[in-house]
Structures are given as C-alpha cells and as structure tokens.
C-alpha cells in the first residue's frame, strides 16, 4: 500500500478506519456497562458507543477531530471488554487501533515525558531483546547496589512523577539473564511426549519475570511437552499496535512468525495475556499483505495461553495435597483483559486454580473488569488508571485472599502496586499463575 502522509487527521481517519465496522455499530449501548472508563465517568463520550460515534462523526465530516477527540481515544484502556458484550460483533479493538494509528501520525500533543517514555519504550527498547536484558541488568544493579535506597531517600524519583515513583517501589528483582541463558533452547518433556510447544518468552516477561518464564517452561515439560525457545523471536508488538505504531508491530510479527516456523512447533505458548492476544491476531495484523496470509494464519492458529494448553492439551498435573498445614489458602483471580476478551481464556485458569490442593478459590466481584494497567496506560493516563485501580482494590480486598493470582505481567505489576497503595499488604501477595501452580505441582 502506497503511503502518502495525508494532510489532516480527518483525512487519515477516513483512510484508516473501517467504515463497515463503524456502521455495524447500531448504538444499542449493550457495551456501556462493560466499559471501565464509562463506569468511572458515566460520560457517553468515554464509552465504546460514544467513541465509535466520534470516529464515525469524524469520518462523516460532522466534526473535525481535535485535541479532545484525541483525548477520548487515548482514555480508552484497550481492554476490549466491549467486544464480547457486543451482540452485533463490532470489532472495536480494530477500530481503536486504526484511530490511534491515525492520531499517531498527526499528534503534537504528547506531554514531553509521555513522548519520551514512548520513544524509549517503543523505538529503543522493546524491539531489541539485547537492550531489554541490559535494562534487566540495569534494574538488577539498581536494586542491588543500594542506589535504590538512595533514590528513595532523596525522593529523586518523585521528581519524575508520583506514579513512576509508585511503580518503582513494586518493580521485582529483574534478572540480567533471560530464560535462554538459564535453560537453553530445548527442554525435553517429562514422561511421554505429547507435542512440541514453542515458548514465547516476551520481552518484559523475560527481563522482569524470568523466574516465571522458567516455571512456565517447567510446567509445560511436566505436562508432557517438549519445549523449544526460538532465540530469534522478539517482542510481540502489542504495545506498538495498540498505540498506533502499526508498521513497527508488523515488522515484529513477521520476525516472530519466521522464528517459530523454523522451530517447527505444534503450539506457541504465551504466559502474558497481553502478548497472547496480539499473537492470535497476527493474521489480522498482516491482513493487508496476502503473501503473509498463510504463515500468519499458521501462527495465529497455534497460539495458546499457558493455562489453556495445560487444561486442553496437557497431561493433567498432579498437585500436592497441601503445602500449608491447617486452614486452606484463600486465593482470588484477576483476569487479564486480553486473555479473557480476545483469547477467550477465562475458564482454564480458574479450572487449574481450583484443582490445586487445599485452596479456597474466591471469585471477586468484577474480576473480568480491567485493573487499569492496560499496556503503558498506567504511565500515560495515571489519573484514570489510579481511579480504576482503587475501585478494583475494593473488590480485591473484599475477598480477603492471601494470593491474588494474575495471568499477565502488566496486571501483575499493577496488582502489586494496588496492594502496596490500597491493599492489605501485610497479608496479601500478587503472583503469576505459572508461579503459583508450579510451586504446588508434585514434580516427577
């Protein structure tokens, strides 16, 4: 597709937005109760129906999209809770990506630090796994060296933004060694082999949560999968696609498809809902490029979340009867929006958690509603993100759980932050489901 930069945002919107999808929205409003930003504000423009009508009005020439149009689009979490709620099957996720893509080519209004963060994150870091692990060592050094204490004491971090300083408190011990450095690229199945699973290591996951990646691989092996970890894979591109950097997202997708095809895997396993959701949509991401049709469909059809593959394809795991003596452990589960709404994987995680010995699973109110993490939303929209988090924590606290289990690194960090800020931090811990399960599996 030839790409001439259009003169105005309006023209770019006309070019990019799928008009068919815009007209498919019949304005019934069924999506309103599902939308966290509408729940927080009660304002129509902050609802899926409202946002779609704004896109349509811009394309129809009823209004010229200005700064507040951009704001409205940026306020959307991209959690896509509106999609399963929509009986008319409007592909909202695609619309918001197209709108943001258009905005990205025109906007001048990022605050300096937002554009700074975006530039570092999107261009300099995520595409480069090497730099990501350097970042890992940096964080590692930062924590271990005592620099962290100094920064905290002097309050230097606060100078950036209150929110970043909150985040800084809950960052885990990042690792300088990723999963391949620690486990190699091939981990054989325990017992009889069922199939070969390709591990999608993720960029953030591999740096901040290497341990979780390792446990994910070990769970797969316990459940009967040969695991390969193609070294040439890179970032999934989700943050780029959701923020309007779609060209870069496409380049990343192609590289990942190549990597896993060469590895000859039966499944591609993700343990991060946010990554998994774009991986299953690689066929859509590349739909304008016919030469990629076959391989992107091959890829998309093989993507599984770790819980789903364990439940649907794996040999049943054997869980220890109990690890605490006495009373059972209270646990609750915060859905990853993308795992739930895009990958449709809200049941397998719950099923696995209920199989663990001696736990009481307590379903929290609105578990499926976004925690406010949403990619880098909590960095770019701190006010709304915090408001959503505060309400989320009311529901979390009401469960009085000891473990708050999640399925995505962003949610995990946000939940840690939530516990730190509004939670019962002396008695509650946020954990990734792979860690929680692996620690309770009877190893063969």
């Amino acid at each position, binding site marked *: 597709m030839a790409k001439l930069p259009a003169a105005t945002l309006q023209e770019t919107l006309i070019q990019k937005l799928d008009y068919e999808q815009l*007209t498919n929205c*019949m304005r*019934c409003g069924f999506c*309103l109760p599902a939308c966290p930003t509408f729940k927080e504000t*009660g304002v129509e423009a902050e609802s899926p129906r409202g946002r779609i009508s*704004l896109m349509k009005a811009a394309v129809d020439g009823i*209004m*010229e999209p200005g700064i507040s149009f951009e704001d409205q689009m940026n306020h959307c979490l991209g959690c896509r809770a509106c999609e399963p709620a929509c*009986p*008319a099957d409007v592909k909202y996720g695609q619309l918001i990506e197209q709108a943001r893509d258009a905005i990205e080519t025109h906007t001048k209004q990022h605050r300096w630090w937002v554009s700074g963060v975006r530039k570092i994150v999107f261009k300099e870091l995520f595409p480069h796994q090497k730099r990501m692990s350097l970042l890992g060592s940096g964080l590692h050094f930062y924590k271990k060296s005592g620099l962290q204490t100094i920064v905290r004491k002097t309050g230097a971090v606060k100078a950036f933004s209150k929110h970043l300083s909150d985040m800084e408190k809950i960052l885990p011990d990042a690792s300088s060694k990723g999963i391949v450095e620690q486990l190699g690229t091939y981990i054989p199945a325990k017992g009889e082999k069922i199939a070969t699973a390709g591990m999608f290591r993720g960029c953030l996951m591999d740096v901040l949560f290497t341990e979780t990646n390792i446990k994910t691989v070990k769970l797969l092996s316990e459940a009967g999968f040969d695991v390969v970890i193609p070294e040439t894979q890179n970032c999934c591109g989700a943050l780029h696609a959701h923020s309007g950097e779609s060209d870069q997202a496409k380049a990343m997708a192609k590289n990942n498809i190549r990597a896993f095809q060469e590895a000859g895997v039966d499944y591609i396993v993700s343990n991060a809902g946010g990554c998994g959701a774009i991986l299953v949509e690689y066929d859509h991401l590349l739909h304008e490029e016919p030469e990629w049709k076959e391989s992107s469909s091959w890829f998309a059809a093989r993507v599984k979340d770790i819980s789903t593959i364990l439940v649907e394809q794996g040999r049943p795991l054997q869980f220890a009867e109990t690890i605490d003596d006495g009373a059972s452990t209270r646990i609750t589960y915060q859905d990853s929006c993308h795992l739930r709404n895009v990958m449709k994987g809200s049941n397998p995680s719950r099923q696995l958690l209920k199989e663990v010995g001696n736990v009481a699973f307590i379903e929290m109110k609105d578990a499926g509603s976004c925690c406010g993490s949403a990619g880098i939303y909590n960095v770019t929209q701190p006010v709304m993100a915090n408001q959503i988090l505060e309400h989320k924590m009311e529901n979390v606290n009401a469960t009085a759980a000891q473990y708050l289990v999640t399925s995505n690194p962003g949610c995990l960090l946000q939940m840690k932050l939530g516990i730190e800020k509004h939670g019962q931090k002396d008695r509650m811990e946020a954990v990734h489901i792979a860690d929680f399960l692996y620690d309770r599996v009877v190893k063969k």
Partner: protein
Amino acid sequence: MLDSRVRQKLQDIVGEAFFKDDMESLVTHSYDGTPMLQALPEGVIYPKDTAQVSAIMKVLNEHRIPLVSRGSGTNLCGGTVPVQGGIVMVMHRMNAILDIDLQNLTATVQPGIITKQFIEHIENLGLFYPPDPSSMSISTIGGNIAECSGGLRGLKYGTTKDYVIGLECVLASGEIMRTGGKLMKDVAGYDLTKLLIGSEGTLAVITEATLKLIPPPKYKKTMLAMYKDLYGAARTVSKIIENRIIPATLEFMDNPTIRVVDDFAKLGLPLDMAAILLIEQDGDMETVERDIERISEICREELADEVSIASNQEEALRLLTARRSAFTALARLRPTTILEDATVPRSKIADMVLEINRIAEKHRVQICTFGHAGDGNLHPTATTDARDHEEIHRVELAFEEIFEAAIGMGGTITGEHGVGLVKAPFLEWKVGSAGIAMMKGIKEVFDPHHLLNPGKMFAKESRRRVVIDRG
C-alpha cells in the same frame, strides 16, 4: 450556538464540569438506539437533583430553548434525538434509591438509576419489580417510565405503568409537581401519574418515582418448544391463552433469529426449526408443574417437533439472556437493523406472522420476527443497509404495510417502544383525528411553548391513508 448568557446561567446552576458544549459532547448526544437518525444539540447538561432541574427549566423557559431529557439513549423511536437542537439533559447523576419502604412495599428512586441495578437491589431484599425490558442492563428507570417499557414478563405481570404509583416531575415552567404517592388506591382527580407514563419526555421531566414492589414467585420453570411449522408455533400461543393459562413469559423467535442468537450465545439451538417458543411459568410449585405439563401437551398437539424443559436455573437464565440479545444479535446479518414494534390481539399472532412474511417477500426485504408473543407484541426486524437508499425505501414501504395490517387486525403501531420521531406520522392511524386533537390539547397545557422534546409524538403531517379506527 447557545447564547453566552444562557450558557453562563446553566453553568452557574450545575457547575462548570456538568455543562458541556464541546463538539465531542454534542456528537455523543446526537443519537440514540434508533438507526439512521442524528441531530446535534447545543449543549449537554447533567443535573444532580430536582432543584437543579427546576432551575435549568426556568432558564430554558425564559429563553425558549428546547430540552430533551435523556436516560441512556437506548430507545428505538428517535425519542432522544434533539431534532430541534437545544439542550440534552442527561439524568445519570440522579441515580439514588431514596427510600425502600418494607411496610408499604414501595421503592422511591431518582430517574437516572440503571434498571438492572435497581432490580438487583430489590431482589437482594427478597422483593420483586417485574418490568424487565431487554435493555435493562443499560436503560434507566426514568427512560422506562417515559416510554412505558415492557419486557419478557409483561404477559403475566404487566408493564411499567402497572408499577409506578407516584411521580415527582418538573414542568416546562420550572414548577415542581407531585402525583400519586405510596398509595394503592387514589382517585383524587385525573390520573396524572398514568398520563406521564409513556409521555416520552414531551410533558415534563420526571425527577423521582415511587414504584410498587411485590413478593417474588416461589418457583419457576422454563421450557422451549420447537417447530418446523411456523403456523403451529403461532397457534400454540393463542391456544395456551385460550386454555386460561397465563405464563410469566411466552416469547417467539423465527428461524433467522434463532440462527443469529445461537451464533452469538452458543446455545446449541436447532438451526433447522422454523420457530421456537420460549415459555416460563412461575408461582407455587404445584401450579407451575401443572401448567408446564399442560403447556407441553398443547405444544405437542400443535405439532411441536421437540419440547424440552430447562434442567436448572443456569440453563433457563442462558435461554432468557439469549432471547434478550435477539435484537442486537440480528445486527450481525447486515449493517443496518431496523426493529419495529407492531402489536395485535393475541389471537391474531399467527395471522400477523404470516402477514409479515408475505409483506417482506412482496417488497423483497429481509425481515426477521421475534417478540413477546404472549402479549401479541411482535418485533419484525429488517436487516438492511442504510447506504442502499433504494432498499431502505422498500423497507419503509414494507413497514407501512405492516402497521396497516396490524391496525387492520385491531392492533397498534407500537406496543412498547413509543412513538417518538419515527412513528409520529402513523400515530393518527391508531388514535384518529379526535385522539390527536385531544393529545395536542393536553400537550398545550403542560408545555405551551413546545420546549419539551419538540418534534416527537406529533408529526407535521400524518401519512395519508384511510384507516378505520378500531381502538
């Protein structure tokens, strides 16, 4: 554009944050659930209490600026499209439950509360508020009252009008009026409560409502009857009533509706059936069991292919939810979905369904039909494409004929969705010229300057067509 003095006065009443006239706010209040209609207001205002509504109304009355009250904009008759500009008043902030009176079994609420939230609250107290429009997870009680909404339980329990016993409202002049109260009996003068119910925001702004609550039924059973023969299904409906059984729910879906609903809700419905009836009975266990058994017999007598009874509450709930999503699920077929609301006496259901199919074929349009068959309230729904003007024209012709057919059978042009903008040209067909004159007279007394939801209910001109008045 709004005069800057008016703007200032409105902002002074509600505060800066709650009066908006940026383009985004105007656009997002230019439509409702009705397809193909859009008009921009000049401002959007969010009052927090009756006093603010009254103050706002006084300003608007003084400057002769129109007002459209709006709940969640889910109505399907263009009821909240601000066709003459002016201000849209969103009632969402007025969403409190003011009083639950367990001695009198009443609830007093503000109009902006979401219907489902209210119902859940009431049910947690072990009580029952039956009106349940399919839009209840979004719609407001105020919108329900203004449209006199019905729902899946209308057959046995009646509709919104049967549960509203008192109202507080703000008149066009800004004065506050109260009607009714926590009274089960009240014949003091004309029944202004009932007059306001279904008045579609054209007579006053409702600011508070007292609702009647009842004890919930003890026991419930849900069943499905499936037919290869459409006429058999429709006849079953008349026959159940004829047998003096009034089910709590008696819903009808034709084949295209079954297909899309199943596609959306993944229920495993049989896709080769011409029609399905969804039937629910509630009450004492003994009566329910007896009724369900008799209903099953009737279904079989009318050659139902299969009759199945939901094995548990969960299954029953899934079926009801699926039926509630029928309308929007139909939107998967074509870009534009136009749902109508023709209603006939219950004994005429079968004839009406056949008539709809005949008319659809004649005009070469796709019309799927579902609805509250037990009430005689059908929703023939055209799936079409607004961009194809020629086809839209044929859809309009088909609907005109459908309304005419309904009235010919002693029916009406709308059973629950209201007149609003889209049915206005047909109102005279139903109520006659004397009826229109009387209604206009009433409107004149309430709203002499035509400020409240102007352009709705009364069309500039009625469609020319000779129709016999049959009430």
